[in-house]
């Protein structure tokens, strides 16, 4: 990657903080899962609803596979996923790429809380 000197970094940081460019919102329906990840030293997981609903109906995950329809309600370990539970029912090298690709799921910024992004409930009143 591009290595920057402290002075160059300072220029960049001040540019970002003086002029916050922040009315970009995460994609609607993206869920952050971080009950265990950061505590265990890996980045939070970001689950994209839009990507999966193009391929599966809600019923597959929320009825057939029994995923709770509440952000943060599913307590899972990586071991269970590798054993074929939760995300691992599909991310097993047969239906979708396997769990070796850590960075595709553990792709969240540090410090994110478990929650869904994008809707009125997450933005507070007045945004619609």
């Amino acid at each position, binding site marked *: 990657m591009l290595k*920057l*000197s402290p002075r160059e*970094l300072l220029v960049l940081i001040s540019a970002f903080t003086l002029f916050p460019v922040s009315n970009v*919102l995460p994609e*609607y329906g993206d869920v952050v899962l971080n009950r265990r990840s950061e505590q265990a030293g890996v*980045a939070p997981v970001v689950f994209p609803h839009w*990507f999966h609903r193009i391929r599966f109906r809600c019923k597959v995950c929320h009825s057939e596979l029994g995923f709770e329809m509440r952000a943060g309600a599913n307590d899972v370990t990586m071991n269970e996923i590798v054993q074929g539970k939760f995300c691992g029912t599909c991310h097993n090298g047969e239906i979708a790429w396997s769990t070796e690709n850590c960075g595709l799921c553990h792709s969240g*910024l540090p410090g994110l809380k478990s929650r*869904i992004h994008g809707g009125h409930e997450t933005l507070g009143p007045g945004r619609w």
Partner: protein
Amino acid sequence: MKFAHDRRRLPMSLRGIAALFIAACVMASAAIAADPNAFNRLMPNQSKRNPPPAEDGIHDPVNDGTLMLQPPKEAFGVLPKSASGNYVDWVKALNSGKIAPRYDRLDPKVEPIVMDLDIVREVKGSMPDVVYPHKQHTEWLDCSNCHPAIFIPQKGANQISMAAILLGEKCGVCHGKVAFPVSQCIRCHSRPKTAPKAAEGGVQPAANAQSKSPKGVNAGK
């Protein structure tokens, strides 16, 4: 590895210029966003919709995996549009065959068990009545996703209010989170009142004729 090594050898001044250039770009775009007399001051800028993962504020842009993820715009380009949420009309996307999400994890041929039953909920006040269509829901969901935890399966047995929906209860369990958001009032409030205000006010008969739509019309059509 070799690539990274080459980069590190770039002369100092070049890197400085690069940093300044990025800073200038950011400042320029921030300056546009900060124009006090911008035409749309509060409405989000169209170009900021469906940002690519590396720029969406929740994915880590320095994680290699992030750059491999599909930008939503690439997938949504071919899908019917809507005014908010993912800016995709998922009902039309499904009905038009633009997407073919599996109903079964393994077998792409399994057909959903669709139930065509509309429940009309009369709304106090001026908003059109709400038509709850089982059809569009059972295309995606199983009965057990709603019954009995969210709704008792009996017409009128559930107290629903807009306040509850905005708090994420009842219809708001999904609408405002994954299904189309609450801002699209008319998709739920889709049936004009049978005794329209216009009748008393003596407005054109055309308005009257239009309002005599049959009970329980399918909101999706």
